């Protein structure tokens, strides 16, 4: 018998950090109570990120257009913008 080693070398989960689903919420007897307070984040506070691509030589992202490097342009915390196709990283945590 072996133990699960995921905690020893945690990676983002398969299928993305926040797996997509079209399943609707279930009823109050089967849904975790705290999810009554789940809400869609305020997308107006999300930041539009500059278009960027990873440069393996520099080992950091560079913008597709002239200007400062992407990391110099954005300092916003991870405010979800409601985009389920491209959710932001979690506020905190490694999570597996």
């Amino acid at each position, binding site marked *: 018998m072996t133990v699960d*080693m*995921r*905690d*020893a*070398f*945690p*990676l*983002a*989960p*398969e299928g993305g950090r*926040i*797996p*997509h*689903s*079209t*399943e*609707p*919420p279930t009823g*109050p*007897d*089967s*849904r*975790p*109570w*705290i*999810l*009554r*307070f*789940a*809400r*869609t*984040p*305020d997308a107006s*506070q999300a930041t539009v990120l500059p278009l*960027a691509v*990873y440069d*393996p030589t520099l*080992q*950091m*992202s560079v913008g597709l257009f002239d200007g400062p*490097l*992407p*990391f110099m342009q*954005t*300092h916003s*915390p*991870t405010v*979800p913008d*409601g*985009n*389920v196709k491209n*959710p932001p*990283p*979690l*506020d*905190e*945590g*490694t*999570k*597996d």
Partner: protein
Amino acid sequence: MPAVLVIAAHDDWPTDRVIKALTDGGAEVFRMDTSEFPQDLTLAGRIDARRGWAGQLATPHRTVDLADITAVYYRAPNPFDLPAGMSEPEKRFAAAQARAGLGGIITALNCRWVNHPSMMSRAEYKPLQLATARACGLAIPPTLLTNCSDAVRRFVDDLHGNVICKPVASPVLIEDDQLKTVYTHRVSVADIDDLRGIETTAHLFQGWVDKAYEVRLTVVGDRLLAAEVHAGSDTAHTDWRADYASLTYRTTEVPDDVAAGVRSYMRDLGLRFAALDFIVSPDGAWTFLEANPCGQWDWIEHATGLPIAQAIADELQGVPA
């Protein structure tokens, strides 16, 4: 040549800031994401009686010898990207081999870590955070973890109704094609009237602590970088993550007794980085809420000027605080 190994997602831009600080200081850096393995990252590690793990990690763009790695910065990398054409059983098998092989050899490196992944994973658990903080002399709120509605009612009664609930793990989910999150919620009488669903999983309740403001304390090695977080709305007063636009920040100092408790906390959990959240009450008392071993820090650096990226780079290079 001594090198710093950085393991992070390619689009983790705060990590770019650390890379810049490292390379500006003359450090040799090898950055990788675990998603590059096995297709764009090769591993050839050897160990024998004569020497410890040595051999190459290589991408098409650069190479590092395992024996030259003096420090590792580990920050939420992605899953392995396995070759197309594998069956699901083959993928599961290959992913487990990759985790034990690549992950095993990396976690065996005897060097400076920010943070060692197994320490970081363990330190993610809120119950352990609270127990450790308490043992280290930090004040914590009374807390209940339960799937029992009677226990919730008793807890709320004991605290005269001044109770919050919040997720004990990730607060975010996508369901019904919508992204949703759960922020800290002040529990009302009406909430307690209907507790159906409590029994479906673990729920966390905590006593409400009166706050003048909160503190985000970023700890990097022996460096304590503290910022007051002042809420500018009722929503942010309950959970500042719910209304970033209303927040204002300023740097602050950590009281000696809290600093001693925090250093003890970090030592006990084997961490060299964490982002800790405290409530500061109107009387000035600091109450520990949680400590994120892989917490966000870039926006705090930008808002306050606290040199967090440089602190991480210094810690990785063994520069004393």
